[in-house]
């Protein structure tokens, strides 16, 4: 292949008089790139608003959009989900490509990790091939420099035929230059396009001639996607190319026959080879890397002998000490006991009782389950400190890059329950908020995994609001706490492995990129926590107010009394005082109501010993809260959600019953 040696160096001219880059035409900028390249921070830099910055492939499930200013123009910026290639596999990648196909962005800004340029160039080549207006942005250039990697930007521009910028988005370095390049977009033709194997090239030529419609990407790119058997593109072609469709099909089929390997494999090999040539021209890396302290720590985290104790420490300090003790006890005591019970509630109750005489209305706002005295008090004095501390802990863990290491440690265990290491994210997040976690199950690859994860989240994973209260009830009493944890973990493994056996469907393998460890940035952690808490209050909190109203209506109409009377039977069967029925019913409206109901019972002295453990276990397993249930319907469909709900309802009582039976007949003293 001497083509690359003899080819003339293209001169790249960045200038205002560029033919293709008229600034006035620029309406939309799409951010594209694989996970962990800092797209979200870049999005923030360009728009001023913030999307969750993530270290974990696929956390940015939803597409963020924002408005930004470039010179005197207002532009729309779209942050596409993490993408490795133009040929999509995951839902995320499908979304990202749809944006490119349908929204026709004026400039596609591809972010790459400058440390890993060579690996990310194949996507650049694909974007160029697709005829998009690409700018390559070497992000995290500071980290690359620290490693001694030198990148010749001029040379890279010449090799690729597109503008290249360098930035360190977190410290806003290089932003001005990047804006300049976007504004004066200029691309020198012909940009670099890999020449593929003979048969593929001739097929591409034929397909390009046969295609009549415009699909937002170059015909060459469409042809390549067809050859690589891209279903979505096939659908589009089928719908729009009535005349030549069968001919196109024939060309593709004939070409495929010529190769023993999938065409995707051959095409990709070529791109990787090409990327290597380009990197060899433009990148200089120092020969040997010494193992850094971070790398050594990373190895310790991944080695099971040291990694499992580290995981235990992370859970103990992050979850138990910080969320369970500091958040759920110290902060809650202060906010709930001092602020609300001491000042706010008496004041507001006084206020209502003075000015509103109609008693039911008083009840609605300041009664036992009133919107203000219970709904808002719980939201601010109970939920905020618990969920807030959880999200702080989670964001710190996420920002360090620890999660993928946790995933690889736990993969073998998760395989047994029909999931793989990847599911560590939704599962851990479920310890914060089951509703959010159920949404995040989208990042799992197969429907089978998503359903199993949804079941386990609905059944076994207690959310932080619940955890906080449970920790508080059983604080200073290690035996019941241990017993509770043991039963819940057992149920988790049992139901998981049963589901894994019963559920049909393919079992995807575990593969995951392990990003380097880094010191968490306070600004990142705060922003992530803020975004999540904000989401929580926007999405979940209104449900809670509705729940308060529903409870109020239920009480006024006497409907709840009937339900509580009915529920009292199963509650008594599992050895609990009938008063616990209220806690069980309210547990559906909000998990923490249920747990808090237990708290009241325990404080009143009617609940201790075996019944306390049984109640804690049953309520942990018992149906998810209203918010989580509605998300289950949205994500999994009504049928599956209902089936899971019913199963959980009965299963929780069965486990409670058996646990009570076992403990009492063994004569366990707690």
């Amino acid at each position: 292949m001497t083509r690359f040696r003899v080819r003339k160096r293209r001169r790249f001219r960045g200038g205002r008089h560029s033919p293709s880059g008229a600034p006035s035409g620029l309406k939309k900028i799409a951010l594209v790139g694989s996970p962990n390249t800092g797209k979200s921070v870049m999005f923030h830099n360009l728009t001023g608003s913030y999307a969750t910055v993530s270290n974990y492939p696929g956390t940015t499930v939803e597409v963020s959009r924002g408005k930004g200013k470039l010179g005197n123009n207002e532009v729309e910026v779209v942050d596409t989900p993490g993408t490795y290639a133009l040929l999509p596999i995951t839902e995320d990648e499908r979304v990202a490509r749809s944006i490119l196909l349908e929204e026709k962005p004026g400039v596609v800004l591809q972010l790459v990790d400058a440390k890993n340029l060579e690996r990310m160039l194949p996507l650049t080549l694909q974007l160029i091939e697709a005829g998009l207006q690409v700018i390559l942005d070497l992000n995290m250039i500071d980290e690359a420099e620290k490693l001694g990697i030198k990148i010749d930007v001029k040379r890279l521009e010449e090799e690729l035929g597109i503008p290249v910028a360098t930035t360190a988005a977190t410290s806003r370095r290089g932003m001005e230059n990047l804006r300049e390049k976007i504004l004066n977009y200029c691309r020198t033709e012909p940009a670099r396009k890999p020449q593929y194997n003979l048969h593929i090239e001739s097929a591409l030529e034929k397909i390009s001639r046969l295609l009549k419609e415009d699909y937002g990407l170059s015909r060459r790119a469409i042809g390549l996607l067809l050859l690589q058997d891209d279903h979505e593109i096939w659908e589009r072609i089928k719908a729009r190319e009535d005349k030549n469709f069968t001919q196109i099909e024939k060309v593709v089929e004939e070409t495929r026959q010529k190769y023993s390997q999938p065409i995707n494999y051959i095409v990709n090999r070529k791109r990787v080879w090409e990327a290597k040539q380009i990197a060899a021209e433009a990148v200089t890396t120092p020969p040997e890397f010494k193992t850094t302290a971070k790398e050594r720590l990373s190895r310790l985290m991944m080695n099971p002998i040291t990694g499992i104790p580290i995981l235990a420490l992370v859970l103990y300090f992050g979850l138990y000490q910080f969320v369970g003790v500091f958040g759920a006890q110290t902060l809650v005591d202060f906010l709930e006991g001092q602020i609300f019970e001491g000042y706010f509630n008496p004041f507001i109750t006084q206020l209502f009782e003075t000015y509103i005489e109609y008693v039911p209305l008083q009840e609605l706002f300041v009664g036992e389950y009133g919107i203000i005295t219970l709904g808002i008090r719980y939201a601010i004095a109970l939920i905020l400190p618990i969920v807030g501390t959880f999200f702080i802990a989670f964001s710190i863990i996420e920002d360090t890059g620890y999660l993928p290491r946790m995933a690889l440690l736990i993969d073998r265990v998760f395989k047994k329950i029909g999931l793989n290491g990847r599911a560590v994210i939704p599962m851990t997040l479920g310890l914060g908020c089951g509703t959010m976690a159920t949404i995040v199950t989208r990042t799992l690859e197969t429907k089978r995994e998503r359903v199993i994860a949804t079941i386990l989240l609905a059944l076994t994973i207690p959310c932080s609001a619940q955890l906080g209260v449970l920790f508080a009830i059983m604080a200073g009493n290690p035996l019941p706490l241990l017993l509770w944890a043991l039963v819940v973990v057992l149920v988790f493994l049992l139901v998981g492995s049963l589901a894994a056996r019963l559920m049909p469907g393919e079992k995807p393998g575990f593969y995951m990129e392990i990003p380097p460890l880094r010191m968490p940035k306070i600004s990142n952690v705060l922003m992530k926590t803020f975004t999540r808490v904000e989401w929580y209050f926007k999405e979940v909190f209104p449900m809670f107010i509705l729940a308060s109203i529903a409870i109020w209506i239920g009480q006024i109409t006497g409907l709840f009394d009937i339900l509580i009377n009915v529920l009292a039977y199963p509650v008594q069967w599992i050895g609990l005082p009938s008063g616990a029925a209220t806690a069980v019913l309210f547990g559906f409206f909000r998990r923490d109501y249920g747990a808090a109901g237990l708290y009241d019972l325990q404080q009143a002295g009617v609940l201790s010993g075996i019944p306390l453990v049984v109640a804690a276990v049953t309520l942990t397993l018992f149906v998810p809260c209203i918010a989580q249930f509605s998300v289950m319907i949205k994500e999994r469909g009504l049928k599956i959600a209902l089936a899971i709900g019913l199963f959980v309802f009965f299963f929780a009582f069965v486990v409670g019953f058996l646990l009570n039976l076992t403990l009492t007949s063994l004569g366990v003293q707690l």
Partner: protein
Amino acid sequence: MDLSEDAEEILENLWIRDEEKGDPTYNFTSMEAETKNRALKELSKFNFISVSKNQISLTEKGKAEAENVVRRHRLAERLLVDLLDTEIGLVEEAACKLEHAIRRGIDENVCILLGHPRVCPHGKQIPKGRCCRRGSTKADKIVVPLSQIEPNREGKIAYIQTKGRGRLQKLMAMGVTPGMPIRVIQRFPSHVFQIGRTQIAVDEEIANEIFVVEYSS
């Protein structure tokens, strides 16, 4: 003494007929009568086949021999496709020739070189040889599954043979492509390796699907 190519051809087809539910009426129509008779005589002499009521069947001895022929054919296909990048149209013919050339233990060398592949490029099982059962991996410069490489050893990815195509695509997108240098970091509980500046973790199953030429230390 070696069997003739025609005799081996017959053995191979009989084995596929019996073991993989191939054409049950296989009757060597593609061969000329004279060649066929010579080959059949040869096979009878070695006691590889028995003929009764116009029905030819493999003897125990013949079955073992036939299995080896099939094995050599499919190894040859693997070799042609994975390491020699042969175009698919040429593979069959070349493999038919090559299978006869890699007798008397050469097949074991090829098998070791390819890391004891389990399926041919068409997805059919490759019968195991002695070397596979021994699990012997001792040879210079061999292709082994990633899962068998010790931590801190280095090599180059030779080829990838995944179960699903989506997985292949994903691995390649992460930079796991033939030709890339690779260094193993750990093997348990997950396999972790480094490609360029990127570390990637995979499970045992995937680590068995990535084949690597290991550099000798």
